[in-house]
């Protein structure tokens, strides 16, 4: 069975398979466009509750566990949580900015957590651009050093970048940098609003030219490239657009449970309910499963000439309150995509 077949099955049969834990919103960088709502109040989940949660997730058959933040390593119990996750047999993905991953930390990560992969944020191909976005001088230089240390430890690393008006002129250079490091780079074309609805981050969203350049570059580097949400979206079937509400959950530092990290519609709170109780028979999830089928139908209509639509139900929900509502940026990407396709057929 291929991965796509497995993913499709989890979507169709509503099998919880991926859980993302936002362990903390604390961070050692200060990225201008960070989507976290740092003003969110609540009682943080304690270590004991995380331990219970991980055991519950094993019982529910969850295989993929994503440790995110903020910066997940900033959580005081990160090592205990990571080690238990390893012991319980999760495939662990860590989303980090890489700033704390000094060689000794990288070694400890390999020994104690043994993640399958570490996703690390890259904001530019030079210190001037990267540090402008992170607002921490020296962060680019330190990241380059830390990436070398991670490689020496044999840890699998992928770079993630968000395309912005501040770094779009370095798109080629960022790919070249990733190539030189022997790492895969995934570029997200959309800057999302903050989770509290603040649209300040979008003041640095990429220009039309930047988006078009990204499309052209993706087609040049991978002619089969399609939309991607950590490789878990759209191309794996036509019944549902993605696994939101069907195979994934996200949990914030205060125990609020959401269908997806991008779709901040609370399903319940772990201080009051078990994750199993929240997952089974939840009317919001039932509603979303229907919505994901509707989204798939709409996207199929929009996908003319084989050009993919980069539609995120979470972003749609944040913008309009309706996860199935096509929003301007998705169709803008479609139009740019068609243009890029034409350019690739008729260079010059």
């Amino acid at each position, binding site marked *: 069975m291929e991965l796509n077949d*497995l993913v499709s*099955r989890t979507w169709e049969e509503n*099998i919880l398979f991926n859980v993302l834990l936002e362990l903390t919103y604390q961070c050692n960088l200060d990225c201008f466009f960070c989507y976290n709502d740092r003003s969110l109040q609540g009682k943080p989940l304690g270590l004991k509750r995380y331990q219970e949660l991980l055991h519950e997730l094993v019982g529910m058959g969850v*295989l993929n566990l994503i440790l995110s933040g903020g910066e997940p390593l900033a959580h005081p119990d990160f090592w205990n949580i990571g080690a238990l996750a390893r012991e319980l047999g*999760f495939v662990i993905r860590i989303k980090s900015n890489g700033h704390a991953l000094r060689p000794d930390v990288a070694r400890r990560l390999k020994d104690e957590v*043994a993640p399958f992969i570490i996703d690390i944020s890259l904001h530019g191909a030079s210190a001037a651009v990267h540090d402008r976005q992170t607002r921490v001088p020296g962060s680019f230089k330190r990241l380059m050093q830390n990436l070398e240390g991670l490689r020496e430890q044999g840890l699998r690393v992928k770079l993630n970048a968000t395309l912005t008006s501040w770094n779009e002129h370095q798109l080629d250079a960022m790919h070249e940098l990733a190539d030189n490091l022997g790492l895969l780079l995934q570029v997200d074309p959309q800057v999302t609003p903050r989770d509290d609805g603040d649209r300040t981050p979008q003041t640095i969203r990429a220009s039309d030219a930047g988006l078009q350049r990204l499309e052209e570059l993706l087609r040049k580097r991978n002619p089969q490239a399609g939309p991607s949400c950590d490789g878990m979206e759209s191309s794996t079937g036509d019944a549902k657009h993605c696994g939101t509400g069907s195979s994934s959950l996200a949990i914030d530092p205060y125990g609020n449970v959401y269908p997806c990290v991008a779709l901040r519609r609370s399903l319940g709170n772990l201080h009051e309910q078990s994750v199993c109780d929240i997952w089974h028979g939840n009317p919001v999830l039932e509603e979303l499963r229907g919505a994901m089928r509707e989204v798939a139908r709409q996207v199929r209509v929009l996908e003319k000439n084989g050009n993919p639509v980069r539609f995120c139900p979470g972003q749609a929900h944040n913008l309009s309150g309706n996860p199935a509502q096509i929003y301007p940026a998705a169709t803008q990407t479609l139009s740019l995509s068609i243009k890029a396709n034409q350019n690739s057929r008729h260079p010059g």
Partner: protein
Amino acid sequence: MAQSLSIPDHIRWRKVAGEAVIVDQSNAELIVLNTTGCRVWELLAQGLSVADIASCLHQEFEVEQDQAVADVEQCLVSLQELGVVTITGQT
């Protein structure tokens, strides 16, 4: 000397909808075992011997004991070739 079966540390797995979903973290390979293979996998993950696994299959799937032993051994050879099971010792 009895065979000793073990699952290496870089192997992660879950039972999903009656099938065993196995991830080899060393090479990012995904392996899915059907119902019978999944049962063999579950039992070896519990630390059972080849003979004990075969006995379980004999009872649960109504196959002859000799056939169950042969099936389990064949399954284990395949899993060993895939690098998801370590077999030490001899039967």
